[in-house]
């Protein structure tokens, strides 16, 4: 892999994946990226999530951000929304916790209750 040009050559494959991930049935991971989230380490948490998705070659997940929701003391907050399931909000998500959330919740469908701040039905 030498340059962006090399990467562009595999664009076609990527575009197919984008089509896949923009389908509404996909799982969403939303990281709190307000000032409070960033100050609490949200960037590193997000980078760990991307890295774990990359290592596991998981494609059908959309990773996005949200601003401050007023729960600054629990940041970094990470929401996981799986199709047909309640929205789970995890609190104080360090990069290590983020990796475990990917393994347990995203891959194996096991919510890590210990770290859950709230559960919202019908999200």
């Amino acid at each position, binding site marked *: 892999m030498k340059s962006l040009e090399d*990467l*562009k050559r595999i664009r076609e494959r990527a*575009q197919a994946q984008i089509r896949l991930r923009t389908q509404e049935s996909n799982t969403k991971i939303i990281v709190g990226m307000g000032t409070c989230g*960033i100050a609490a380490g949200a960037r590193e948490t997000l980078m760990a999530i991307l890295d774990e998705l990359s290592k596991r070659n998981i494609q059908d997940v959309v990773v996005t951000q949200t601003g401050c929701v007023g729960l600054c003391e629990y940041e970094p907050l990470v929401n996981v929304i799986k199709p047909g399931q309640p929205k789970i909000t995890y609190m104080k998500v360090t990069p290590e916790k983020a990796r475990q959330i990917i393994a347990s919740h995203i891959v194996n469908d096991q919510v890590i209750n210990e770290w859950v701040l709230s559960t919202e039905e019908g999200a």
Partner: protein
Amino acid sequence: MEELSLHILDIAENSVNAKATKIDIEIDINKKENLITMKVIDNGKGMDEETLKSVRDPFFTTKTTRKVGLGISFLDEIAELTGGSLEIESKPGIGTMICLRLPLDHPDRPPLGDIVSTLITLSVTNPDVHFYYKETRNGDVWTFDSEDIKDLLGDYALLGKVKELLYNNYKEFTGGELL
């Protein structure tokens, strides 16, 4: 926040929230003049004069979820602490420009930090926004354009390679010098 790159992430997220579709981030490092300049320019909704006057106040925010707004006041504090300056220009409907100038050698000047992580974070989580980053170090220039990697963002396996490539490119540019 301990890194300028985290402040850049924070300010650029403000721009995203202000509905910007194009965000230019510029860093200029000039050792001769002992100056680091950080600019974030967006085409978001901008601020009226009244908002602009209050924006440095930590107890001012447009948010409704809480009563403090720390992003800009952090920058103001850094400028004050180091003898630098913070300039903000904004026009409703046109956009906002934030320019922070700091003495390079001041001990209270935060390090630039992990700018590549900031650029990846912004690009991945805001795929509809065009981010352009330009860093100048004593005349040498390094740029990043989110449009170049836009089509690759959806594939996380490729994103890992993009990340590696950007880190290597950037390291080549800086020669590993941390500022």
